[in-house]
């Protein structure tokens, strides 16, 4: 209960992100948040959300130009809880096929790969899909009956550092990591702010994580 009083939820405000949608989704659960535009606010937060909707490269470039890249990178394994959404999750790895040569935050060793479609019908991973979790995944607060909205063309194939705590989603010939939790970090490949009640609940779950 005391931590609740000290809680400050910050959403990194990027043009390559949709901070406003996330802010509104948190608001629906009665959770107030602040927009993180500089290092000073970043450091005062107890929880930070990094929503990314543009490419891997665009998100990294904007973080660098706003002098947020290094400060953010240093927050791994700190007391501050971090959540990456969509591209925000992807940049927590090393690199991405989307923008070769661009370095990610490097908290995890994964490299993002392109979703390949060798089937007759062209499909983007744009739509609702489910997540496969092991039975005792209470840490993630999702179940096999949950459904979330995805919209992306590159994905995280595995998170070596997280052998247990993740959920995966199958699409075409690929199996991607759709959600994971490790140390002080959570990643979600889908858009919880566009996934109705279940999305709002999982955002709330992150914010209540201590």
């Amino acid at each position, binding site marked *: 209960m005391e931590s609740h009083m000290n809680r400050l939820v910050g959403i990194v405000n990027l043009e390559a992100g949709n901070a406003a949608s996330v802010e509104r989704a948190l608001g629906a659960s009665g959770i107030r948040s602040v927009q993180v535009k500089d290092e000073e606010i970043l450091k005062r937060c107890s929880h930070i959300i990094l929503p990314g909707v543009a490419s891997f490269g665009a998100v990294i470039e904007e973080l660098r130009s706003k002098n947020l890249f290094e400060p953010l990178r240093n927050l791994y394994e700190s007391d501050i809880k971090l959540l990456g959404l969509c591209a925000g999750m992807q940049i927590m790895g090393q690199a991405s096929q989307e923008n070769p040569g661009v370095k990610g935050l490097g908290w995890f060793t994964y490299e993002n790969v392109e979703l390949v479609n060798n089937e007759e019908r062209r499909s983007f991973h*744009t739509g*609702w899909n489910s997540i496969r979790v092991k039975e005792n995944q209470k840490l993630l607060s999702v179940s096999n009956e949950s459904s979330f909205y995805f919209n992306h063309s590159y994905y995280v194939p595995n998170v070596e550092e997280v052998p247990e705590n993740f959920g995966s989603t199958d699409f075409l010939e690929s199996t991607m990591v759709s959600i994971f939790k490790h140390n002080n970090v959570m990643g979600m490949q889908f858009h919880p702010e566009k996934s109705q009640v279940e999305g709002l609940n999982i955002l709330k779950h992150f914010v209540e994580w201590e």
Partner: protein
Amino acid sequence: MNTLFRRIIPKILISRHSNLKVIGGITTRQYETFRFIGSPPSQARIFESNMADEIILINLDHKSIDLGAFVDVVSKVSSEIFMPLSVGGGINSLDQASKVFEVGIEKVVVERALMQNPGEVVKIATRHGSQSLIGSCSYWGSSTIPIPARLEARGVIRISALPARLKLMERMGVGEVMINDASRDGTREGSNLVALKTALSSISLPIIDSCGFGKTQHFVDSFEAGSSAIAIGTYFAFIDQSFMQLRSQLANHGIRVRIK
């Protein structure tokens, strides 16, 4: 395998009420205004409570609802929902599309712009990505009733022209295609499965089927034929069947839909 859930997408069609002056949600019948059925934000709120998969919001009244007024409605609808929102109706340029994207929507729907401003459509696809662009095509599917002149003038094409039009849209870079049989619009007599199958074999993009849905079996048939999504304007307005009820029935028919 395409594991995505099949989507059912309510269409909120807006027009200005001539007496009450307010912007209301309407249903149409063969592309003419049929009835005013509610307030757009209120309908959006109800669909959110019912966990609809997505909403398509279309401005059918460009003469009395300009871009500014439309953006206002989009904003009000968007603030009621936490699901993807696609909007369209008179979007003719990258500039206009960008203005609606700023509100926080997922996709724009273009129809006339495909023919009248193809360059702008390509720009939208390039700037915002193919996944954010739905190309819509209205055709006249009836073989017994000839296409009304007023609709042909508005750009509704003959069904024989459908494959070529769809291929053109695919080349322009749209991410999804919505096909609408104007002859069945609002009739609830069943959708045009022949046209759907033609469309599926003409292009390799996901297809949103629309117009004519009135019974559960219609939805089942369309999904089994291969549509990725079904967009409906009239169905929920005039039947004692909610979104969640329909979805349960579809699940009972073996269709992969989200159910709570």
